[in-house]
């Protein structure tokens, strides 16, 4: 992998960028479309174990972020990576790491999923960078993903701030050739001279926050000078376009033949470059903002224009020129530019093309768990809710199962079932996978057991994180059972079932018994995912 160029996914380009930046560790919890970042680092580490890069999966994103801060305190560089909703889980250490600032560089790669290909929402991680007042890099191709990761580590150490690197699904999952720059070595271990900045007592946090505010000017100057914020003025053209990420690609796809004359500012680094925006705005009469995700630049723009005293109109998502929901496509950008559609409507395939949603594999253990649970709940429809969580078992919402009635965020099944139970629901059931349980099911279960709430928790332990491609689970099987025992559950109500067709009758009986028990019970359904190699 040390050859000078390789065909890489956007995710893999970030991984190689981080490795060549001399990271000592990569901390991550899997989640589409980010998973392949950590997997690429793990593959590299397997092939080149020396010098050591720690790259085992973290238990959740909050822990991953804190681990990076720990490494940073002793001077080491690390990459944190996760899907966009993972940043919510990591938000507490993330926000506060902006106040401590970093020692060794910290780069957080957050992969957004507009159109929700594999997610519960399409939140835009640029807002997190803004919220924390730290710089954000946004590549628009695989080469930039590599180059920006390299640069982000240097900037993190130069300005002593963590950096957020934002990418979206299509960039993460497109493969293209990437050229490498000369790798640098890892940082030496170096203890801080002063621990005040790392100890956020109010008396330390206030001066640290002040420092962060004072850095903003320098960061804007850096952003204005950066070649990643690329301004091309076309003299005399009335239209100015500000674009970022994949928006730039879709713009160029449509206008590379020169069909539209415009000035273009491509944003690759935030905070936004003030001078370049001013220069663009002064050159045109109308600005179109093409950005994937929320209208972030578009919202900021009017305040800049007002400050500069420039009066140009702004178009984008807020006025409906571009749709606010979903990912951009070349066709959508084409329409926003007022160009004719390329699509030909000759094809009437209606009636022949049917939806083919994802489904549980034939022989999946969750299948047998759901069949048994459905039978145990038969006749109780008015008094039951099955709260579920995120994983392959969420597919139990679809026919033929239709077993589950909710899915909010990782770990929520247990908290929600507990609350429903104490607020009067007779049969409150939670269904949660082993990886999700480790990630954020432990704390609500501990609460429910200690509060003696009458609810039933089903841990579907398939010994893996299946939905995201089969990453190992930190605590499963016997260790998981011991953990639940240690939480103080009445052991008569810690049940084990094997979700197999031949066990069906027995399993139904276990569910029925525990549903009637007026206290906390945990049923562990243990059988390996059939995709585990």
């Amino acid at each position: 992998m040390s050859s000078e160029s390789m065909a890489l996914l956007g995710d893999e380009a970030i991984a190689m960028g981080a490795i060549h930046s001399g990271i000592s560790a990569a901390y991550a919890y899997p989640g589409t479309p980010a998973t392949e970042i950590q997997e690429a680092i793990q593959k590299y580490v397997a092939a080149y174990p020396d010098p050591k890069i720690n790259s085992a999966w973290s238990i959740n994103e909050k822990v991953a972020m804190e681990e990076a801060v720990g490494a940073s305190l002793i001077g080491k560089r690390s990459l944190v990576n996760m899907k966009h909703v993972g940043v919510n889980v990591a938000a507490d250490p993330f926000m506060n790491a902006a106040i401590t600032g970093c020692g060794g560089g910290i780069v957080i790669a957050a992969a957004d999923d507009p159109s929700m290909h594999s997610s519960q929402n399409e939140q835009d991680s640029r807002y997190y960078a803004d919220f924390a007042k730290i710089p954000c890099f946004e590549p628009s191709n695989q080469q930039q993903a590599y180059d920006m990761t390299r640069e982000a580590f240097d900037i993190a150490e130069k300005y002593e701030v963590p950096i957020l690197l934002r990418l979206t699904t299509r960039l993460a999952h497109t493969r293209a050739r990437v050229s490498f720059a000369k790798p640098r070595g890892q940082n030496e271990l170096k203890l801080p001279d002063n621990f005040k900045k790392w100890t956020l007592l109010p008396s330390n946090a206030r001066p640290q926050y002040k420092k962060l505010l004072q850095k903003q000017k320098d960061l804007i100057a850096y952003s204005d000078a950066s070649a990643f914020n690329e301004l091309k003025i076309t003299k005399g053209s009335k239209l100015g376009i500000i674009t970022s990420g994949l928006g730039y690609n879709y713009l160029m796809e449509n206008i590379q033949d020169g069909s539209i004359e415009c000035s273009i500012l491509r944003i690759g680094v935030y905070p936004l470059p003030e001078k370049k925006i001013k220069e663009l705005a002064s050159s045109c009469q109308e600005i179109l903002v093409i950005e994937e995700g929320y209208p972030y630049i578009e919202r900021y723009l009017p305040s800049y224009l007002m400050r500069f005293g420039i009066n140009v109109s702004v178009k984008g998502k807020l006025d409906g020129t571009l749709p606010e929901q979903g990912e951009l496509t070349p066709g959508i950008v084409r329409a926003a530019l007022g160009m004719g559609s390329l699509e030909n409507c000759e094809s009437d395939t209606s009636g022949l093309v049917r939806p083919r949603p994802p489904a549980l594999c034939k022989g999946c253990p969750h299948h047998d768990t759901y069949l048994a649970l459905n039978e145990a709940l038969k006749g109780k429809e008015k008094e039951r809710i099955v709260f579920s969580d995120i994983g392959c078992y969420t597919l139990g919402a679809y026919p033929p199962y239709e077993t589950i009635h909710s899915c909010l965020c990782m770990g929520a099944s247990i908290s929600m079932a507990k609350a429903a139970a104490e607020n009067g629901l007779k049969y409150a059931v939670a269904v949660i996978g082993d990886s999700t349980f480790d990630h954020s099911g432990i704390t609500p279960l501990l609460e429910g057991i200690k509060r003696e709430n009458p609810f039933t928790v089903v841990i579907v332990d398939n010994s893996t994180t299946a939905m995201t491609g089969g990453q190992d689970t930190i605590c499963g099987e016997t260790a998981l059972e011991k953990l639940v025992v240690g939480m103080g559950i009445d052991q008569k109500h810690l049940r084990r079932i094997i979700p197999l067709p031949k066990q069906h009758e027995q399993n139904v009986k276990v569910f029925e018994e525990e549903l009637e028990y007026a206290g906390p019970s945990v049923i562990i359904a243990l059988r390996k995912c059939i995709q585990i190699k």
Partner: protein
Amino acid sequence: MKKDIIFAGVGGQGIVSAAAMIVTQVDKLGFQCKQNEVHGMAQRGGSVVCHVRISDGQIYSDIIPKGSADLILATEPMEALRYIEYLSKDGTVITSNRPFKNIDYPDEKDIINSIEKRSNSIVVDANGLVDELKNERVINVAMIGALSKAIGIEGLKDGILKDVEKRFSKKGEAVVQLNHKAFEFGEAAVQ
């Protein structure tokens, strides 16, 4: 030169690896390539699509604009139809005729008819191939054979055949031969 190709199929059929097989060779031949893959949720028996873009100039968009694909390569006929709006007016559909029925499936004849009605369509008789070679897994190689002929890039066929040999040589000469046969079967479907 520009070739935009949609690879379509059902999760588990090996669409991503089929696309990668083509892209790896085309990349070696010095062309610019982009391959957009599907990972995550959609892989569980759902509909899967992969965008492959090949050009001798710069490629901007990671996905193919609707209405401009040169080819659709489908390992399943309904999946060929699902992405038909990506095809350009004179674009070509290459599809296997073997349905994958994990859903309430319409009459497969209607699907094949609807594809064959198009002026540029190639239906590879994957059913016949499976009967002949008694092996389900060779369908992808047959489809790649058809595609490689249809794209007509010099050196592509040799590269792929070498790759096939490398991949399957561990499993013995018979398996390599089987895949060669499948490749030629696919090629023969393209005039």
